[in-house]
């Protein structure tokens, strides 16, 4: 008898993708047809971009793993949407090859920012929470996290980039992405850090630490292998997925502010805006009070896919169940040892 998988967030992602596909087709296909008729876009390439959500739909339907389904269903439409936005942005102004190279650079820069940020956040979160393994070491980590959580990330980024301009230490190229990644990683470190603290609290409820010590496991191995690697790996990954969405939204907000106020440091945009938005939409951000319908639609199309991307990743972060405490020693033996002691 076939076992039916329980409904979860993957199903939601499936429905979202199902709703997305007709929208994408209805919206992008006429534009692509017009552009193909004008000879601006090669037909084969354009149509494959539009049908990418269909591939995602089939993929999410076939997949039995809820998390993979959710992630697949949400990442693929983003790529399709980005590609469609790329085609729209290139219309008649720039050759498609030039636009493709710009797109690749922009997307790569975003990936660099988010990767550096998540890596920094994980590293700082782990280092700060290591003292929590001792009963009295938790207060210092909590206090640092309180400080970091009290500061809005967008405010920090805009102030720092403004200061770099004020100090004439202008950042350019990939250095902007590294700078933004490290700073946002520092201020997002409470996300993985708190997950580890919660996990250590769960472990402390049982005989986890005492049983391992009774078995003669050295302290460094308890910390690095049993706690961090064996038991905190999955919560840490979930926190990193959540942090990734924060970085995407923060970078988008930062780029908007820098586009709207070039006085702050307009030469320090991270490339995210230039990648996904048309020139007309970027002009609309400069004068949002006078935005027209066409400009709104041109801005809405990439935003729709970015929103879907963030929703999908957050569903993945919320949906995955953290397994029960994994102890490498038999708990019955450990209890026996403790009673003997």
């Amino acid at each position: 008898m076939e076992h039916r998988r329980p409904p979860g967030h993957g199903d939601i992602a499936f429905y979202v993708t199902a709703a997305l596909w007709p929208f994408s087709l209805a919206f992008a296909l006429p534009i692509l047809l017009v552009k193909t008729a004008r000879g601006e876009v090669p037909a084969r390439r354009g149509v494959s971009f539009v049908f990418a959500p269909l591939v995602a739909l089939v993929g999410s339907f076939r997949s039995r793993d809820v998390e993979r389904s959710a992630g697949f269903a949400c990442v693929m439409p983003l790529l399709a949407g980005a590609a469609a936005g790329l085609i729209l942005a290139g219309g008649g102004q720039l050759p498609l090859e030039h636009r493709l190279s710009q797109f690749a650079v922009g997307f790569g820069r975003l990936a660099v920012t988010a990767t550096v940020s998540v890596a920094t956040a994980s590293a700082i979160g782990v280092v700060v929470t290591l003292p929590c393994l001792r009963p009295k070491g938790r207060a210092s980590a909590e206090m640092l996290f309180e400080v970091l959580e009290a500061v809005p990330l967008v405010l920090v980024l805009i102030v720092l980039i403004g200061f770099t301009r004020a100090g004439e230490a202008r950042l350019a190229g990939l250095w902007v992405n590294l700078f933004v990644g490290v700073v946002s990683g520092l201020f997002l470190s409470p996300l993985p850090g708190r997950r580890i603290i919660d996990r250590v609290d769960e472990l402390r409820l049982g005989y986890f630490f005492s049983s391992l010590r009774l078995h003669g496991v050295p302290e460094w191995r308890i910390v690095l292998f049993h706690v961090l690697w064996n038991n905190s790996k999955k919560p840490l990954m979930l926190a990193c997925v959540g942090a990734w969405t924060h970085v995407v939204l923060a970078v988008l907000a930062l780029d908007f502010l820098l586009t709207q106020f070039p006085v702050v440091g307009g030469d320090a945009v991270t490339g995210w805006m230039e990648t996904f938005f048309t020139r007309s939409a970027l002009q609309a951000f400069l004068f949002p009070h006078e935005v027209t319908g066409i400009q709104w639609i041109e801005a809405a199309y990439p935003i729709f896919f970015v929103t879907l991307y963030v929703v999908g990743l957050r569903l993945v972060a919320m949906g995955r169940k953290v397994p029960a405490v994994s102890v490498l020693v038999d708990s019955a033996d450990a209890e026996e040892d403790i009673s003997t002691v």
Partner: protein
Amino acid sequence: MIRFLRVVFHELVLKTAFPAVVSTLLMLVALSLVSYERGLVVRTRTLEERSEQDETVEIEAWHAYIDWLERLGEGDYGRDRYGRRIADYLGYAFRQSGFLLVGSVAAALLVGLLFASYMPRRRRFRLAMLPALVATALPSFFAGMTVLGALGYRPYDQWNLVYAFVTLSLVNGVALEAATLGMAASDSERDRNYVLAGLLRGLRFRRLPLPGSVERHVYRTAIPQVLSAAKRAVAPAVGAQLIIEQLFGLRGLSSLLLNGFLNQDVSLVLTVFLYTVVLCRLVTLGLAFLAWGLSRGSYGA
């Protein structure tokens, strides 16, 4: 009483004043690092020279910071490039930003809890969570642009404050926390013994926490958890507020920040930074005290 004083000290001193001071120190370190190429020198306008000449000067970052701290202690924030005293309109900007943030957080909490109460029980988790999740994932500037396009922009009109309030309530993420945790907490509370005892005494299940309903007791126990989780959504909400204030032309803290950049005034930028962090912590503090007050005497505590 002693417990109350301990809570006040812990929340007010350790969790509000300390983060505010440390965050400005962090900014100073960052300021020094980014201006390292020029020998820890920043280009700024000192407070004395700002009103006399219209040119920037270069001073050391530490000097600028200590100068700012001294002036801050005296309550003197200097003058802007038009000769107006910053202290005169800093209070107005703080009040406006504070009203916007507090109002939007409160509205989002109410909306989230209403979602949690009124959604159909079988599918309510999905139905309530998904709109809130989408609203939270929407970039704040695009939400603002949509509201502006739909309702129109009126220069120097109080309606802009209402529009900004609506937009920030949508995107600030508190509604998502309230909806998801409200449902999860109330569901987990329904199996507790006090709920069973209440049912035996004649209480009934209703949607809203009205007198004579089980929900009145369930929510009293569940809401502190919701408030505790909503505290973490306040700082991202402040980031969104900076953008929304600019979109709707409000004269809040973000306009002062922009003035600081226009004037290359490190002191003003640090002041706005400090006030923003304090505002963020005060809202968090309010939520913490509300959670503490509601949890007193609740059955689940």
